């Protein structure tokens, strides 16, 4: 298999952009899993729901920017609602991991089918036309690199937030020991809500980008969740940079396979990578370190 320069540029570019969008989903998932121990199977739903809300609002004649803002606010509210109405009922229970995995799976079923009822099938967010450039022979919609840049920006912001602000530290503290956090004055319920909200917003933003570049469908959420779980696990749970690294790796593997081997092999390649990494390193690429 010979890869030409043009192809290489294409593969890397596409891979990095897709990877950064995935990173937003994965970081949201990782944040929620890290702080609440919830393996949120509904994570990707925050992307599809946000996307469809925007599709719906734009369809009603509301401008793109206000729709996006409304969509993101909706994501936050949805995140908090999921935490309050569902997850909070499981705190302190045996088999928390399993129960919340299933409960969030239930949320996925609900969200998927509500979207199907409301929107039918496949929809796209009409992105702003910011032109395109020709790179290595193919024309590239400028929206693509812009989406990648937005994703990266959000991630850096989140990193600073969790490392250097008391609120961010408190999230990590609650994750480690809820009682301990309570005793030093952390309102853990608020942290839980906030974490879910922020996790949902990050993923919601990925939904906006995804909906502009690709196509939203009621099942996009599940697909993103599958990617995100893979990433979080390959990167090592709780490892911020591991997650980013894994996102880009998965993005590149995906792009390479789609271009050079065929789209049918995408999932196969990605799960094979996951498989190999975990067999070699059961704790993920950067397991153990933060």
């Amino acid at each position, binding site marked *: 298999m010979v890869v030409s320069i043009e192809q290489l540029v294409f593969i890397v570019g596409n891979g990095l952009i897709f990877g950064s969008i995935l990173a937003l989903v994965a970081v949201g998932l990782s944040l929620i899993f890290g702080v609440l121990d919830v393996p949120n199977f509904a994570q990707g739903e925050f992307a599809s729901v946000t996307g469809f809300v925007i599709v719906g609002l734009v369809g009603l004649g509301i401008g793109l920017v206000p729709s996006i803002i409304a969509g993101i606010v909706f994501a936050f509210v949805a995140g908090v609602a999921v935490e309050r109405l569902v997850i909070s009922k499981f705190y302190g229970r045996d088999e928390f991991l399993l129960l919340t995995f299933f409960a969030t799976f239930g949320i996925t079923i609900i969200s998927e089918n509500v979207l199907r009822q409301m929107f039918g099938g496949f929809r796209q967010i009409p992105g702003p036309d910011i032109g395109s450039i020709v790179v290595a022979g193919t024309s590239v919609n400028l929206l693509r690199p812009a989406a990648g840049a937005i994703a990266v920006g959000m991630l850096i912001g989140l990193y600073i937030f969790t490392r250097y602000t*008391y609120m961010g530290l408190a999230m990590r503290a609650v994750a480690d020991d809820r*009682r301990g956090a309570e005793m030093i004055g952390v309102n853990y319920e608020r942290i839980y809500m906030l974490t879910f909200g922020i996790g949902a917003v990050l993923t919601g933003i990925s939904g906006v980008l995804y909906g502009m570049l690709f196509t939203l469908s009621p099942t996009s959420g599940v697909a993103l969740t599958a990617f995100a779980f893979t990433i979080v696990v390959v990167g090592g749970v709780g490892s911020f940079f591991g997650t980013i690294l894994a996102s880009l790796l998965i993005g590149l593997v995906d792009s390479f396979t789609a271009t050079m081997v065929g789209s049918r092999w995408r999932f196969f390649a990605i799960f094979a990578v996951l498989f190999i990494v975990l067999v070699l390193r059961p704790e993920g690429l950067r397991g153990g370190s933060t």
Partner: protein
Amino acid sequence: MDSEKHTSERNALEANEISAGYGEAQVLRDLSFELQEGEILSIVGPNGAGKTTLMRVLMGLIGPTNGSVRLYGDQITDLPAHERLGHGLALVSEERNLFREMSVKENLVMGSYSERGKNRGERLERVFDLFPRLEERQDQHAGTLSGGEAQMLAIGRSLMTDIRILMLDEPSLGLAPKLVPELFDKIREINDDGISIVLVEQRAQEALQLADSGCLLENGAIVHRGAAAEMLDDEDVIEKYLGGA
């Protein structure tokens, strides 16, 4: 406040007819308790008497099934733990409740969360002074500390913020012999700054020597309450809890 003997008549913390337990099992039965402002109160009692449970109720980590808790006269029975800290009440718990995945330093920094880091540097220094070991290990994950080191960190973390009442549940547990008198000295020092202290200890004798008053908990009820010195002389107490001394 009187600098000589700062115990005043005012109750810093007060519990009335508290009942509490876990699920079906009742641990505390109609227990009443008061801590006078400025005093060191030592609680002793056999294993499983309910000392830790009492600390949890006072801190708000578990709710009582009955009774009420007052802090400086204010009703706080339904106040969640994190808000109690804001009112000056702190606990070093038996389980320590450290942030295992965070470094020693980050644990201490989190100790000042409620004040968002006010006087952080100064306080860090104070903790490192008391436990030089923690300074050596400030970048180590708290989860990998040895038993004694973890205990030091738990105590240190509670000293990172301004409080009025400090409750310590077996703070000497797992500490090397050399550190115990140092710890007790420190407790005395903290108390000298006007902070009221509840001290739960298995080292009953040392604890009572340090304390102003004592309290004997048995089977979920307080069976004896009095001046510490008095209790040290009490034959009954000696026989039961001070190992025949």
